[in-house]
């Protein structure tokens, strides 16, 4: 088949597609994750798959590798109907995925990880170690990782090398289609080059590659064809030579790109500053210059950026959920530093985390207990809880936030996503904070409750509360914010004031930041 492919390519004959999707749909509850995805992948083609956060790329990959079953639509693999029910079945059909999150077992050796699915065994079921090591050695050499000892535990490798080991594992089995989900997110430029070389070798052998990436320049470098998803639909699919970066951004966002150049960063100088950061470096921030920003009283400052740009880390460091590496933090002009979330909260900072269920709420405890969790001293005397006061606070804030609930004694788990989020907001409002940090404030919240939460956030600002909002949904940020900072690679790469808001501008900043990083 390999030689055929090469010949066919040479002759310019178009082959039947190896993978074909037609109008694939998948809904989770009321959310349409996939709403008509069509895709056609040729043998030996590198196919770029791009789209904003939430466009449906991850769901699509899950459908292809058998984790999620589609509701509607047809999928053909090499001419036959394809409906895998398990990842194992997908592999048996020659479809391999290198996932974004790591699936390696850190305490096993590199060789064991590579061979985990089919360890070479003798008649007694004992692993043939030498054979395994030799095989792993060959696999690593093949992708240019000769500097790694296959006997090392994976835990000893850096994040980039782990990613490449994962690629090596995927290459152990002959596959027709290899899906790389954001493979370069953790790689340095040298390793990215290695990966690209592997990709072009594979292509020559007739393997098709689906390359999912946020980095448009990479897509242009290695892809033959590019498909854009938006809101779960295929909106664009074209050979790479027939398109350009602007067109792709436009397709991702969905409107005409206005040809305007980025204006200079406007700096505001309002007197009443609530929070300022100077050269503030959250953990993992690779840059010495850190992040500097000013947040004013009554202002809603939005923070945009791609996944992994360091937005959550910034909020966590301000709230002292994690210690910053260095830098200064000023609260109402006074230099401050917090050693624990407790100190940050006492100073007037509230933090609505991204993960409501893991970090925000105690689901199996009553709503009232959740509302008062951060202000227990207000509803107790000498350490003894005043249940009446607790219920009063809950009912007062519940009414203010239009919380729909069965009663203060009902568990938080009984609430819908939007109402759970309101409980988290109530928890911080009960403390009367000066600064409220919101990480993805409407994640997992239905449309109606979203609008309510927006209205509430604006009300808070009108009362003089300073709000820092991180969101992956650009329309949300543009609705809420007075000003938007764009982050990329753990630094602020752009600032937009309200009249300058547009999704195109924000994405331009975000992608430019990525490219600058790549050039360095």
């Amino acid at each position, binding site marked *: 088949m390999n030689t055929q492919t090469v010949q066919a390519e040479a002759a310019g004959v178009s082959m039947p597609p190896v993978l074909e999707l037609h109008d694939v749909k998948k809904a989770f509850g009321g959310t349409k994750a996939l709403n008509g995805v069509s895709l056609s992948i040729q043998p030996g083609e590198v196919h770029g798959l791009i789209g904003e956060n939430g466009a449906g790329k991850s769901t699509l990959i899950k459908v292809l590798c058998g984790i999620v079953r589609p509701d509607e639509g047809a999928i053909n693999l090499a001419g036959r109907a394809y409906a895998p029910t398990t990842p194992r079945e997908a592999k048996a059909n020659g479809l391999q995925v290198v996932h974004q999150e790591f699936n390696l077992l850190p305490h096993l050796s590199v060789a064991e990880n590579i061979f985990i699915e089919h360890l070479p065994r003798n008649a007694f079921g004992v692993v043939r170690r030498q054979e395994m090591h030799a095989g792993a050695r060959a696999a690593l050499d093949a992708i240019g990782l000769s500097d790694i000892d296959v006997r090392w535990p994976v835990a000893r490798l850096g994040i980039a090398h782990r990613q490449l080991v994962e690629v090596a594992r995927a290459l152990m089995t002959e596959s027709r289609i290899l899906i790389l989900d954001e493979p370069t997110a953790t790689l340095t430029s040298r390793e990215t080059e290695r990966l690209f070389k592997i990709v072009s070798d594979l292509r020559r052998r007739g393997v098709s590659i689906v390359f999912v990436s946020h980095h448009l320049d990479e897509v242009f470098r290695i892809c033959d064809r590019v498909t854009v998803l938006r809101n779960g639909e295929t909106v664009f699919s074209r050979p790479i030579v027939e398109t350009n970066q602007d067109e792709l951004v436009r397709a991702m966002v969905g409107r005409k790109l206005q040809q305007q150049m980025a204006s200079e960063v406007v700096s505001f100088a309002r007197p009443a500053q609530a929070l300022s950061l100077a050269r503030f470096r959250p953990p993992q921030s690779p840059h010495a210059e850190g992040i500097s920003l000013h947040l004013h009283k009554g202002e809603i400052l939005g923070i945009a950026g791609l996944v992994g740009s360091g937005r959550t880390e910034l909020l966590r460091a301000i709230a002292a959920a994690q210690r910053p590496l260095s830098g200064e933090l000023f609260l109402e002009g006074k230099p401050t530093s917090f050693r624990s979330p407790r100190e*940050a909260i*006492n100073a007037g900072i509230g933090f609505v985390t991204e993960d409501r269920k893991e970090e925000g709420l105690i689901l*199996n*405890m009553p709503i009232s207990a959740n509302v008062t969790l951060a202000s227990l001293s207000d509803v107790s005397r000498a350490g*003894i809880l005043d249940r009446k006061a607790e219920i009063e606070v809950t009912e007062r804030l519940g009414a203010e936030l239009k919380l*729909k609930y069965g*009663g203060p004694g009902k568990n938080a788990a009984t609430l*819908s996503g939007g109402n759970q989020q309101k409980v988290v907001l109530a928890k911080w409002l009960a403390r009367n904070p000066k600064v409220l940090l919101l990480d993805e404030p409407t994640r997992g919240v239905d449309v109606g409750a979203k609008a309510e939460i927006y209205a509430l956030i604006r009300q808070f600002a009108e009362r003089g509360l300073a709000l820092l909002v991180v969101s992956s949904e650009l329309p949300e940020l543009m609705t809420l914010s007075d000003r938007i900072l764009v982050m990329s690679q753990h630094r602020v790469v752009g600032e937009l004031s309200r009249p300058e808001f547009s999704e195109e501008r924000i994405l331009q900043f975000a992608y430019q930041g990525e490219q600058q990083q790549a050039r360095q």
Partner: protein
Amino acid sequence: MQALEKTQAGETVHARQLPGWSPKVLLRDAGIGLALLLLIVFFSVSTEHFLTANNISNILTQITINLILAVGMTFVILIGGIDLSVGSMLAFCAVVGGTVLTIPDLSVFQAVALATLAAVGTGVVCGFLNGWISAFWGLPSFIVTLGMLNIARGAALQVTDARTIYSFPPSFNAFGSQMIFGIPVVFLIALLLVAIAWFVLSKTVFGRLLYGIGNNEEAVRLAGHSLMFYKVAAFTIAGALVGIAAMVYMARLNIASPIIGIGFELNAIAAVIIGGTSLNGGRGTVIGTLLGACITGVLANGLILFGLSDFMRQMITGVVIILAVIIDKYRERLTGI
């Protein structure tokens, strides 16, 4: 849940149920109480001597020590921890207390007061170390208290040179078998401890946060509470209760030996689990623990009266522990309680 969403906040009539005393929790405790009642009825009907005043006070005396240890264990298990060292700590606290108790030239009052202080103090120090070491280094309490199990036992043997301490003041011993209306005084002490623990766990900020930590540690930390303090406190309370249990032990049996209390931690854990407290933490009540301790006590006593061997009794107790957890699992799945 849909019905809830339709209700407008304004028109909702809130049942003023108190958190911690919600009908669900009451129902859970009531279920365990019912099981206890059935056991009592069964043994009363099937054996001649079960329902006699003498036997009842016997049972109450027998469960007292386990109950006190189980109250402390409830605090630890509620935050998602476990304390395997209480049996050894009991021996260590007893020999330290016993040594003080036998100091010559002290009045009985002085001796008992000082011995109590010494025994409880020993328990507090051991419990504090359990909590602090596991919280500070983020170690599983299973491992740390397994270490303490050996340390405390070794320390008890070391300070006594493996000898048993006896000849305590006679009035101290008399106190151990004192009755009020046929109820052993030591059991009343245990009941008082249950009442205090119930108050602390359900009525105070401290108790609220222990439940919170057991359910979602990170949410509690991000709400501005020191996990370290509450974790160390839970283990320290368990230690203090071991000290009190050691005094009760000496008052009843009139000896303090470095080899007492072997396996007591497992009986205490069994009482807590049968009482409906989740080993994952965050769920359970000390009333449940009281009922759980009664169930194990009634079973032990009743099965012997029933004519079963001690070996059979042990097997049946094991079955009950497993059954309790299975029933709990179903209850959780079916009713969401």
